[in-house]
């Protein structure tokens, strides 16, 4: 699969150029090539009109290209100053190196407006400061081209404003800024030119002054062909099986990941959650499956009520008829080194068909059951003795689905149902999910592929920055509305 196909990009010096697109659009790959993490198969890169080769990050830095990643590369117990110092120390003796760098940094901070307490320990710094530190690191090493990958994902609104001020100042001083984002408001505010990518290609490029958010949103999302939808009517849904209210949670750095999320899952209906990855969908799935507890919020499932203090756990969830197909197949859904028939028991090891009351595992019964499941779900090769890691991604996913579906769940949570799955299996999986829905199960599907959501869902919820920003029956979904919601605009 081509991550980037004939991508051409021209960025004017001293300007802010935005690159927008959904997941898998190819923006991250493009930036990786520019920063030397990957090499392009074809094509050229020119910096300041000179063709260059970028084989690794050090060469990129030497060319004046600096990158601010989403996940910061900072040593927590060290001071901010030492973090900038590392690798670029002007002197063997630390106190001299620190003194010299401090002078340079103060000058930089004055001219750019970036303010960080150099003597603070990074562990004590809030996220916004850490990001500014990363930018300083890049600038001190002489970066004149700055690539920022989804910089506002972790910032509060105030911190975002501060960042915008800094970026505007930097651009005014001649630094070229490449901004990767899916938040169209930022694009309209900061950028001079914008490139829209989709499916690894550039689909649109224009001056920001000559476009609008609506146009960009439509370009970003494009015209989706819903696989196998064929005008299938959306289901209304019966009783409420799961009700979540006011869910809120934070990550390890205290950044809120979910805020005030409420939803209902009804029997015989598929709810799809659309949105760019990283907007809280993973956290939502983990909360509903009992893998983590929220800071606030309640959950009602099968007549039982759970609050933040006494949250659901995975075992109870399964007993109450909730099944979960996790997003992370390798680390969560199966034990890679177990045989297929062993992973088939994962989460259900105390069921009567898996182990006896005394605790003996019913090996032959389990093997037979797994073989039957593999037959039904067309898992290849049909060998239940193989280790899970020996199956292809698609077959692994089928094994996981087989396990969860075969338990006749009342509620099924699915994360990225067809990630890494080949075309042939995708249709099969969709069919299984629809069958389950028709049998009366309440399903929640989270996917970063919008076509998938449109193909499967009866109701579509869009998440952005940890909130549900819109809810639509699938029949009313169109590219523009969805694109705007995903980009953080307009609540429908």
């Amino acid at each position: 699969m081509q991550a980037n196909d004939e991508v051409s990009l021209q960025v004017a010096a001293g300007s802010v150029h935005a690159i927008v697109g959904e997941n898998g659009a190819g923006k991250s790959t493009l930036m990786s090539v520019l920063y030397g993490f990957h090499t392009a198969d074809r094509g050229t890169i020119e910096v300041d009109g000179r063709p260059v080769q970028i084989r690794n990050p050090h060469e990129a830095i030497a060319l004046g290209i600096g990158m601010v990643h989403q996940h910061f590369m900072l040593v927590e117990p060290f001071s901010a100053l030492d973090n900038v110092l590392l690798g670029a120390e002007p002197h063997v003796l630390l106190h001299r190196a620190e003194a010299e760098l401090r002078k340079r940094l103060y000058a930089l901070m004055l001219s750019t407006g970036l303010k960080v307490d150099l003597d603070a320990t990074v562990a004590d710094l809030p996220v916004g400061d850490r990001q500014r530190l990363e930018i300083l690191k890049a600038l001190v090493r002489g970066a004149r081209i700055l690539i920022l990958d989804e910089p506002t994902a972790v910032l509060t609104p105030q911190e975002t404003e501060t960042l915008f001020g800094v970026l505007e100042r930097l651009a005014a001083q001649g630094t070229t800024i490449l901004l990767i984002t899916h938040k169209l408001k930022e694009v309209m505010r900061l950028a001079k030119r914008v490139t829209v990518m989709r499916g690894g290609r550039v689909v649109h490029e224009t001056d920001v002054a000559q476009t609008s958010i609506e146009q960009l949103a439509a370009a970003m999302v494009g015209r989706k062909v819903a696989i196998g939808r064929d005008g299938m009517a959306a289901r209304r849904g019966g009783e409420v099986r799961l009700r979540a209210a006011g869910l809120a949670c934070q990550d390890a750095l205290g950044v809120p990941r979910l805020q005030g999320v409420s939803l209902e899952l009804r029997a015989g209906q598929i709810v799809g959650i659309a949105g760019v990855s990283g907007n809280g969908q993973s956290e939502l799935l983990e909360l509903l499956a009992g893998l983590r507890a929220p800071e606030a919020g309640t959950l009602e499932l099968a007549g039982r009520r759970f609050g933040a203090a006494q949250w659901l756990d995975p075992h109870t969830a399964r007993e109450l008829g909730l099944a979960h197909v996790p997003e992370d197949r390798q680390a969560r859904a199966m034990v890679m080194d177990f045989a297929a028939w062993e992973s088939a028991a994962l989460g259900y090891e105390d069921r009567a068909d898996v182990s006896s009351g005394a605790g003996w595992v019913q090996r032959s019964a389990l093997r037979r059951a797994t073989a039957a499941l593999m037959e039904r779900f067309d898992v290849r090769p049909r060998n239940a003795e193989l280790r899970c890691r020996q199956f292809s991604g698609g077959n692994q996913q089928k094994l996981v689905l087989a396990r969860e579906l075969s338990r006749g769940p009342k509620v099924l949570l699915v994360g990225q149902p067809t990630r890494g799955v080949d075309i042939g299996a995708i249709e099969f999986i969709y069919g299984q999910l629809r069958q389950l829905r028709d049998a009366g199960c309440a399903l929640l599907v989270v996917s970063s592929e919008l076509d998938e959501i449109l193909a499967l869902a009866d109701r579509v919820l869009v998440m952005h920055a940890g909130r549900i920003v819109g809810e639509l029956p699938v029949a009313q979904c169109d590219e523009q509305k969805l694109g705007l919601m995903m980009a953080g605009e307009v609540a429908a």
Partner: protein
Amino acid sequence: MDEVLVGTVLASTLRVATPLLLCALAGLLSERAGVIDIGLEGKMLFAAFAAGAAGAALGSTVLAIGLACGVAVLLSWLHGLACVSHRGDQVVSGVAINLIAAGLTMVLGIAWFRQGGQTPPVSDAVRLQPLWPGASEALGPLFGGALLGHDVLVYAALALVPAVWWLLYRTRFGMRLRAVGEKAQMVDAAGVSVPRLRYAALTLNGLLCGLAGSYLVLAQNASFVPHMTAGRGFMALAAMIFGKWHPVGAFWACLLFGFLDAVAIRLQGVALPGIGEVPVAAIQALPYVLTVVLLAGFIGRAVAPAELGRPYVKEH
């Protein structure tokens, strides 16, 4: 207070603490760079053997210490080969080094000297002598005997505490070493070689273990005796942890453990006010108990370097 008693206890404390301190500083350098070092015991043992063998056979103090350090450095590099270059399990490698050292020192000792594993006594000319033999007479048991009457390695060990501190906290190398033990990925992204830093730390580690082993044979005993380290390497490990991976902390911990050792025998049969008679075993166990209590978080927190035990695998 009886000056002679205090003097002897203090002198004894310093003598016991010296090999502990050298090993603890060695372990500290390695672990701050992210490499667990269970093999301190084995390295000290092999170094002691080398010092004993070389001292007896070659009759030179410098060569004895040099060979001891060389052998310990080789073992550290072996540890590096398994763990840094090849992502092996660091604890298993340390255990292997201890076993290899225990066996090989005996095999070589018996083969070369035929005295049941012991090396022949090293002559007084080669052994380390107190720098100022007349200290005790001149300045009394406390200042003379206990503080100024030691051999060069004792003072070297004491001097190494500020030296290691300075290296770790005041030089570029030291900062990079500490960084590689906290977030190796960041160091790599900054363009500094992670394996090179770790091997450098391991080399220094080997040198210090070599000094520790030399001390056992050239200052404390007069020859290498089978299994003479008797768990001191592990006690040094405990001291390093008790000192929270900091050179000054390790120093105080080694002094404490040395003090406990010096005092253990003397307290036999003596009733302490309020506690009664303390069994020798209880005092001998105290360093280990204290370390466990510290690790359990009951007397403050001991936070290990974040990368400790994790082999560095380049991503991308």
